[in-house]
């Protein structure tokens, strides 16, 4: 057990130490990264960028049928 825990502890120590002694520019870019990831994954992805086919259809068969309709019957009216 100690054989596993020791390298894990030194690895986590490496990261903790790195973040603790980070320069001021490093802190700034990390703040930007966190804000950006929050906006991209928790705002844009959830509210604006849902997967069109996954949202509308329950399975791949329905998705295939829809896209086939799109490709073969271009005058069909879509809601």
């Amino acid at each position: 057990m100690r054989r596993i825990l020791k390298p894990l502890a030194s690895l986590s120590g490496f990261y903790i130490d790195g973040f603790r002694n980070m320069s001021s520019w490093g802190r700034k870019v990390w703040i930007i990264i966190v804000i950006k990831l929050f906006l991209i994954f928790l705002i844009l992805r959830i509210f604006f960028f849902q997967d069109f086919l996954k949202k509308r259809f329950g399975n791949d068969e329905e998705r295939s049928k829809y896209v086939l309709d799109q490709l073969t019957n271009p005058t069909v009216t879509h809601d």
Partner: protein
Amino acid sequence: MIENVDPALIDWSRAQFALTAIYHWIFVPLTLGLSFIVAIMETIYVRTGNEEWKRITRFWMTLFGINFAIGIATGIILEFEFGTNWSNYSWFVGDIFGAPLAIEGILAFFLESTFIAVMFFGWNKVGKKFHLASSWLVAIGSNLSALWILVANAWMQNPVGMVFNPDTARNEMVNFWAVLFNPVAVDKFLHTVSSGYLLASLFVLGISSWFLLKKREEWLAKRSILIASVFGLFSSLMVAFTGDTSARTLSELQPVKFAAFEALNEGKQDAGLVAFGVLKNSEDNIGSRKLNEFVFRIEIPGFLSVMSGGDRNVFVPGIKDLINGNEERQILSVTEKMDRGRYAKKVLTDYKLAKSQNNKEQAEALMNIFGNRDFIDNYFRYFGYGFLRSPEDAIPNIPVAFYTFHLMVMLGFLFIAVFVVSLFLVLKGTLTKYRWFLWISVAMIPLAYIASESGWILAEMGRQPWIIQDLMPVSAAVSQISPGSVMTTFILFSVLFTALLAAEISIMTRQIKTGLKH
């Protein structure tokens, strides 16, 4: 085009994708090139043991880190857009796009994110050689990430290594190696990464020149200029060479794009390359589409034929040959391709109908057609033409293709000249005497970005109307969503990306002004 698709929806979806891709590409090329420059500098430090080289390495590594961090995940948004705005396309490409992007994700995660931590947190904590290896692995990892993205993009320009499954309406990869070694992918990867090295070299050259103008950090500046000039000269020659091979591939696989970027209306042998020219609308037209002609031009005789086929006698088809057809040169007209595409669509429609009516015999007969080599090579390959309304729909925006190509090439030659002069002056030890040249070097930074973005605008605008060359036009690829929602996210992205860019410039400028003090 698809008759009921709102043109505003297509325009906004395209504008949004263009905006996202252009902003994303502001961050990527600097990462590709600066990672190697940093690794080269650190190699010199490890070999010489000179602490000054360590300080130089850490300075440029800081700028690399800022750019890398701000650029993280800006490419993810492009993948979101595929699923939301381009769902027909995303479904149609099947696993062809998924496989390279999945490999890219794994590589990016394991190589870049693991070793970048060692790069920044590992000074004085891990051995010098291990740290150096991490820097090289970050550089190699970021370039390998680019490879898979470019493989996916190249497939859109030249779809190979797949078969279409009419049951699922998806393309299925049957030959991974054909996708990976697609001639467009090879050219595109080499041309794109070398353009990234070139941009990063100009970035290093420009900032170092600014230090010399301010009479600061002279040791850093002169040595950085030496590295940037050597690396930049090598890269810019590689960009020119790979540009030449790309043009040859393009003339064969995307001849309309090739003719468009030279505004070549009539095909000819001994075709000249326009070195500089100004276009105007011509009286000549194809269908409802006005062609362009030159107000004036400076031409290099025979060079376009040489670029296309290595010989002045090679016939380069013009836009008219490619749209109206040329029997003598065995070039099919777009009208003929539209007929073939409509036939392929009809076979697919009939197959769908036979299946829905449970007519197994007819469905099987039609399914066999999809496996027939003649049908695949001579009909299904023109599937996308079945969506066009008129032959002139196959013509891209000629002035955009022409000006972006010529701007990119002219700047490319300017960059070669700048690297030759900077290398000569820095080796001679007289660089600081030529303040005008130092100012020119600073001005090269924005020009490098303009050239780099122009290349992508040419690649993507020049292949219109196709999202997948000959197989799917953009109008058939777009999702049936409200143009208003695409417009809203377009505005959101404009704000988000502009804020990110402003943050990058602000943090980077502060670090540059700080110099080696940090």
